[in-house]
């Protein structure tokens, strides 16, 4: 497969290894024999036309596909050499390690504080109220939202603007200290200014987390990611350094897509 694009891989630590991953939705073969390595502390962008399987692949990594009736996953996916599809694996623990941010901001109908505190509370990460408060404040700061909301932590999270809501969801995801953060088109419901803020945030978060982001925007992939994977009709066509994918793709399909000839 094309993940060995002639470039030294050994220099970076590999966080996620996917081998021969297939996904079926009832009869539909949505993802076909995908092999992909994701490096730690980098942003990997998954691009491709609608329905190409990039979101499906993303949902394999925290087993959100389990929630869909009739979905079936074969192959192996390992995070830090640990197979996440083992029978006795605790999905709850996995999802605490692999956070997710959705396409549409989905804050809970709770206060801003409780939104962020939700994860730490259910996982028992804070022994005292002061510890919990510290986790919430740190997460909001990391999500670049703290300055905007510090005086109204007790107001409803649903009352924030779209961009603020999305950053609140990011704060909620990082509050449980995940290792990997999955983002499914995190900016598609946001205006350009909010998008710029979230993109900036993704770039900063890379220091502490491994990030995989699905995006429809080629510019976004080029701006925020170090590695880019191109999916087409359920297959992984090409993966490589973002710069190389956008300037000198190996595959004709990739070139067609990034130059806007289809998709």
């Amino acid at each position, binding site marked *: 497969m094309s993940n060995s694009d002639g470039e030294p891989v050994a220099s970076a630590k590999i966080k996620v290894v996917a081998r021969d991953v297939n996904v079926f939705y009832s009869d539909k073969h949505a993802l076909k024999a995908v092999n992909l390595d994701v490096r730690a502390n980098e942003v990997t962008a998954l691009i491709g036309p609608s329905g190409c399987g990039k979101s499906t692949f993303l949902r394999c990594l925290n087993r959100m596909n389990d929630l869909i009736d009739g979905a079936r996953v074969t192959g192996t996916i390992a995070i830090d050499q640990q197979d996440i599809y083992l029978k006795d694996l605790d999905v*709850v623990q996995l999802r605490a390690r692999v956070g997710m941010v959705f396409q549409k901001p989905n804050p809970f109908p*709770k206060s801003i504080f409780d939104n962020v505190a939700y994860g730490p509370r259910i996982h028992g990460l804070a022994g005292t109220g002061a510890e919990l408060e510290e986790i919430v404040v740190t997460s909001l700061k990391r999500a670049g939202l703290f300055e905007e909301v510090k005086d109204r932590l007790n107001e409803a999270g649903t009352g924030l603007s779209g961009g603020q809501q999305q950053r609140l969801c990011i704060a909620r995801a990082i509050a449980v200290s995940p290792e990997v953060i999955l983002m499914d088109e995190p900016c598609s419901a946001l205006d350009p200014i909010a998008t710029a803020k979230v993109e900036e945030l993704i770039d900063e978060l890379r220091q502490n987390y491994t990030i995989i982001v699905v995006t429809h925007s080629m510019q976004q992939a080029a701006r925020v990611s170090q590695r880019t994977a191109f999916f087409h009709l359920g297959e992984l066509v090409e993966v490589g350094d973002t710069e190389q994918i956008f300037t000198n793709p190996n595959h004709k399909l990739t070139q067609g897509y990034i130059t806007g000839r289809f998709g």
Partner: protein
Amino acid sequence: MQVLLVLLLLLALSASLYQVGRSRALRAAGGRTGILHSLPSYYGYYVALWCGIPAAILIVAWLAAEPTVLRAMVINVLPAELQGLPPARLSLLINEVRQLASTGDYRFASGPETKAVAEQYRALQGISFKAMVAGMLSLGIAGGAFALRAVRPSFRARNMVEGAVQAFLILSSVLAILITVGIVLSLLFESLRFFAIVPLNEFLFGLSWSPQMAIRADQVGSSGAFGAVPLFTGTLLISLIAMLVAVPVGLLAAIYLAEYADPRFRAVAKPLLEMLAGIPTVVYGFFAVVTVSPFLRGLGASLHLSVSSESALATGIVMGVMIIPFVSSLSDDVICAVPESLRHGSFAIGATQAETVMQVVIPAALPGIVGGILLAVSRAIGETMIVVMAAGLSAHLTANPFESVTTVTVQIVTLLVGDQEFDSPKTLSAFALGLILFLVTLALNVVALNVVKKYREKYD
């Protein structure tokens, strides 16, 4: 029967005028239907409406006025000694005349004068009917002709027809509102008559209910007591027990069906649960009387507790069962309306299903659930059949669920069943109780609907 025939005649007339109006429009357009402002059928409808509506109004007005006018005419022709009768006797006489006239059979007339008057009445009725039909036909044709004159290609028939449709719809909704207002006013006026005899604060705060009025002045125990507090507490006690049964069972069933159940199980279980709502309340009533009450009394006896055979507990439990589908169905709707994205957000943080339900889904659905519960409370308070059959008749001021209590609705039924004199406070008190019941359930419904509405606005 005759009136029905007249209406059919009017309908036929309108239908034929529809055709006339339509073909007039087509002729006016001279084959180029494009120059018509509206579709040809709208011109037809316009003419038909002008024919039908004024004539229909005439019929309604005529039928409403006819008895009064005929009565006045008949009284005028009565012999002088009969004209001088007191009003009540006169009404009786007129009633008899009407009765005779409607059958046309005078064998049972109370006297020759009555028979003559009845014959006259019948003749007048016949004339009135012919006049009505003639008036209707001429008004219909005149209306149609008036409308036909307006039919020109530039005439905006569609707008006129739309306006008529809208007016008809407004009329329907206004009618519904007026009927409600009428019911409230009738309750209010009867209640005012009651409160003229029994002071309002005695009714609202009195602790003893014994609605007996003396027939003779020296009768023993003749003083009526109209303190409605025992009825309110009885109603509240039974409703509370009902809610204690219905809310947990209904809510938990809804959570299971909406969040956990296999779709195939849900497809079977939900209609089955909702079938409970289709059982007539009378059946619930004898279920309470025949099954639940004796069972509870037996159970109480084995525990050395005295349980009345008309205990509030038995009644409340059965009423609660009746309300379960109400609570579960409304809760199920609001739980299903919670966006899937919230559940996924919660799962993605590593929450279990129970944590997601308890900490995200239920709080999000809470306003809707509360609204549904309030609606259920108002049903419990207004429920009549079960309590009439299973609850007691005598008013006890108690909070003990094993004793028998009575409710507002039970008292209204017992006060009004059978022949009653409508000027005694005993009977009038039923209207006062009805008014209070109405105000309470109205307030509950308004609050509940507002809560539900607020919730809908949040996610839609």
